[in-house]
């Protein structure tokens, strides 16, 4: 019982440290509970795309648990540092290591119990609230019932019990391995003056540089996914290395610049930064990484969410869009297509749609390997056992043959072409060849490279590079390919008819029309109309799916960002707090030696400014270099509008910087108060 009392006493006496710690832990618990709750939520399961969001939420849950663990460990290390002194005293007064461990156990149990209970309580209160927000973002009506997810409660309790157990093991280990004297002195034990580690700093810079290079030079969106993860890891490692040893390096250099160093406002700040940069650097790097994560997440998810309309109109240029693949190239003759068209038009008009703003063109698509000399082999399957399979995949292109007649009609142009000539448009990659030679097909001379092509539908979600070829005569260009099969027996080419139109109907009836028209198309006799396969998509239909997916992502972005911001603020708070206590006696001495309050304020400002805005500056730089990469990733989500993403990113950065300044102002006051408190002689 005495241990419990001592534990409570310890917590009460160190309120200023324990309160924010418990707050941190409960907030982490609450957020983890909420994410977990949503993952179990029936309401979300039942909505369209709910399963996708819940899958993402599982990922979010994992990230939260991992991050909570790291973060609670980090904050706990501050506590241990300050509690060691007390433990040392108990040790000298006759308590054994075993008794100390018992106190630590009680203390951890108390903080853990309070944090987890408070966290789950807050989580339950807010879980319904966040559910409502999520459903609102997704644009759905909801039931207002209140519920507790016991599975989530159990999950969260287990996760956090594990985390607290880890921190306990860590503190017991630290107390157990040091002598009473070391414990007593641990708080005053200054860190050894750091020797600048050039190698580590340089390696960090190189890592960041390499990551930036990857981010900037990435070409295809498909590569971007992999590259993104590699670059993220490199940037995280590089940032830590650079900030930890690079900052010491810089301080050492500054100290060598006598003219700069021996100025009243640089003298104190540079030396104290150099002195504790090793620990400081880790904190700064964490803040920087968290800020970068927040910025990337928020800017990309909000771009997706707010850019949804634009993405929709790219992916679905008309309210109703159909893509019908014919059994063979003859199916693209107008004799075959006209009856189909009449059926669609007639059916739609019967349902009250005005078939207007029609887009109607034919194309033949084929996949093939493009070699540097312009040779194209559409028999890609033959390479599936090649030893250099990775190299083969990189050469994989999608080709779209479009007849000149249709191009001129759709684009309202009057271009002319001769036989064997083509105009080309590259998707995802520029065209370097001037002539393409299809094995078993025809040779095409590229006479013109198009600046733009109204790519529609599935073309917009191409991950591989693709080339649109506008040709004089479709059958002539495709040539012998038409009769050939690939290694699994399918036709090597897909003759496709693209037909879309606007309806002039309200969303509800568009939704209905899409469903009915699909049934109609599905009921058609395939062979009579030479149909191989058909697809139909309504913009309204897809809007709902988009909203749910992007809304879910956006929501997750907000929740995770809020958590990360919160974590960054707490790291800053802890930094200021612990450094304030450390600097307290230092500034006391300086005051005796003749430093005025104004001097102290100036020196503190110069120090805080550097320490504060270094991570923000770095984060902005990371964000800048991540831009091209994230932009590529966004094209996977149909977002082609770069300037929109740019604007959103800039706005996010601005808002974030404002919040950051606010935090800076509040915490610097805290620091100053602590430092000023120690003015007795």
């Amino acid at each position, binding site marked *: 019982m005495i241990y419990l009392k001592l534990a409570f006493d310890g917590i009460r006496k160190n309120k200023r440290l324990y309160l924010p710690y418990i707050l941190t832990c409960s907030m982490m618990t609450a957020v983890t509970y909420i994410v977990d709750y949503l993952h179990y939520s029936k309401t979300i399961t039942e909505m369209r795309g709910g399963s996708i969001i819940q899958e993402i939420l599982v990922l979010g849950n994992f990230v939260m648990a991992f991050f909570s663990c790291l973060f609670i460990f980090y904050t706990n290390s501050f506590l241990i540092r300050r509690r060691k002194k007390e433990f040392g005293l108990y040790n000298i007064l006759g308590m054994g290591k075993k008794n100390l461990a018992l106190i630590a156990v009680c203390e951890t149990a108390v903080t853990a119990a309070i944090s987890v209970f408070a966290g789950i309580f807050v989580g339950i209160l807010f879980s319904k609230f966040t559910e409502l927000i999520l459903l609102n973002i997704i644009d759905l009506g909801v039931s207002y019932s209140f519920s507790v997810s016991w599975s989530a409660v159990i999950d969260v309790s287990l996760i956090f019990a594990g985390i607290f157990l880890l921190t306990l093991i860590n503190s017991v280990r630290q107390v157990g391995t040091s002598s009473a004297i070391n414990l007593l002195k641990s708080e005053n034990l*200054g860190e050894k003056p750091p020797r600048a580690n050039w190698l580590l700093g340089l390696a960090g810079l190189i890592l960041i540089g390499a990551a930036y290079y990857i981010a900037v030079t990435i070409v295809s969106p498909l590569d971007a996914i992999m590259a993104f993860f590699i670059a993220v890891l490199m940037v995280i490692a590089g940032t830590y290395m650079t900030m930890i040893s690079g900052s010491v390096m810089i301080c050492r250099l500054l100290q060598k610049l006598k003219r700069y160093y*021996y100025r009243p406002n640089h003298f104190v700040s540079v030396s104290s930064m150099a*002195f504790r940069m090793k620990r400081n650097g880790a904190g700064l790097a964490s803040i920087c990484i968290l800020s970068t994560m927040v910025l990337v997440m928020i800017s990309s998810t909000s771009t997706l969410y707010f850019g949804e309309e634009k993405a929709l109109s790219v992916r679905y240029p008309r309210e109703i869009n159909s893509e019908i693949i014919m059994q063979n190239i003859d199916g693209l003759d107008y004799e075959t297509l006209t009856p189909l068209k009449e059926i669609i038009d007639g059916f739609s008009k019967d349902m009250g749609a005005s078939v207007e703003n029609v887009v109607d063109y034919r194309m033949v698509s084929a996949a093939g390997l493009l070699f540097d000399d312009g040779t194209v082999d559409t028999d890609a399957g033959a390479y599936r056992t090649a030893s250099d399979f990775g190299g083969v995949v990189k050469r994989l292109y999608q080709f779209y043959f479009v007849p000149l007649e249709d191009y001129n009609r759709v684009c309202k142009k009057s271009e002319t072409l001769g036989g064997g000539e083509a105009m080309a448009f590259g998707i995802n990659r520029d065209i370097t060849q001037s002539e393409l030679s299809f094995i078993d097909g025809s040779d095409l001379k590229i006479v013109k490279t198009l600046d733009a092509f109204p790519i529609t539908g599935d073309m917009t979600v191409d991950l591989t590079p693709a080339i649109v070829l506008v040709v004089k005569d479709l059958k002539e260009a495709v040539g012998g390919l038409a009769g050939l099969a690939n290694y699994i027996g399918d036709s090597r080419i897909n003759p496709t008819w693209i037909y879309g139109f606007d309806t002039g109907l309200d969303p509800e009836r568009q939704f209905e029309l899409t469903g009915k028209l699909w049934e109609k198309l599905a009921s058609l006799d395939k062979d009579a109309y030479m149909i191989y396969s058909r697809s139909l998509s309504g913009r309204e239909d897809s809007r709902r799916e988009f909203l749910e997916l992007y809304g879910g992502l956006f929501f997750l972005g907000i929740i995770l960002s809020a958590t990360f911001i919160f974590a960054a603020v707490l790291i800053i708070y802890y930094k200021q707090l612990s450094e304030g206590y450390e600097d307290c006696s*230092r500034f006391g*001495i300086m005051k*005796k030696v003749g430093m*005025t309050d104004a001097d102290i304020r100036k020196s503190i400002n110069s120090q805080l400014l550097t320490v504060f805005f270094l991570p923000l500056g770095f984060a902005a730089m990371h964000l800048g270099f991540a831009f091209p990469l994230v932009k590529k990733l966004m094209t996977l989500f149909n977002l082609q509008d770069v300037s929109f993403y740019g604007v959103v990113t800039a706005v996010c950065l601005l808002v974030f910087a404002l919040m950051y300044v606010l935090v800076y102002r509040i915490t610097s006051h805290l620091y100053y108060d602590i430092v000023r408190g120690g003015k007795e*002689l």
Partner: protein
Amino acid sequence: MAVLEVIGIKKTYTSRFGTNRVEALKSVSFRVESGEFVAIMGESGSGKTTLLNILAALDRPTGGTVVLDGLNLANIKESSIAQFRRDNLGFVFQDFNLLDTFTVEDNIYLPLVLSGTPYREMQDRLRPIAMRLGIPGVLKKYPYEISGGQKQRAAVARAMITDPKLILADEPTGALDSRSSDDLLRLFSEVNGLGQTILMVTHSVKAASVAKRVLFIKDGEVFHQLYRGENTNEQFYQRISDTLTMTATGGEVK
């Protein structure tokens, strides 16, 4: 000429609700002439530290005036007091008060840097002082890498580098072993011999015995003083010791 003139200093501490009043200093008056080496002795609680804080302008007296080099401390604005302290006073503390974030050299430079002195001039000033104090070898080290005696000599160097009117020392030998104490006290006499005025607060008879004059404080008042005259350190030590014995036994002095 008097460097320091203390006239009727009073300091009363009042507890938060004004129920308890403690008179730390009742009425203290004395003068310190230029080039003097004065020790102030008294037991714990006699008001030594309070007096030193007031002389250092770290605390304001309840009554009375302190005149340093012709300037009344009460007339100095709060904002310029630190500057004044930096320019006119040097401090040596019991626990050295060196900053562990600075090298010894930078610790010594600190008051000069705060005054905006150019690096070249700081170097020129440090060289002779470091030689005299015997610390050139440790200048590039950090405080926790050197011994207590070296630390205190570094602190003395910091006090001297501004060329102050008066050096205030608060129990400078308190944290030192006897050999380092002897070294430091010898150093103080030497520095004083060069014309530096020193005021030292101590309860060590040994420390006081190197001074030229000793003031005794009891119950917030100066109740006695001794001049060294032609005495050797040992003789002076004996006289101080006798005085303290008499005070403690309540006997009348002289």
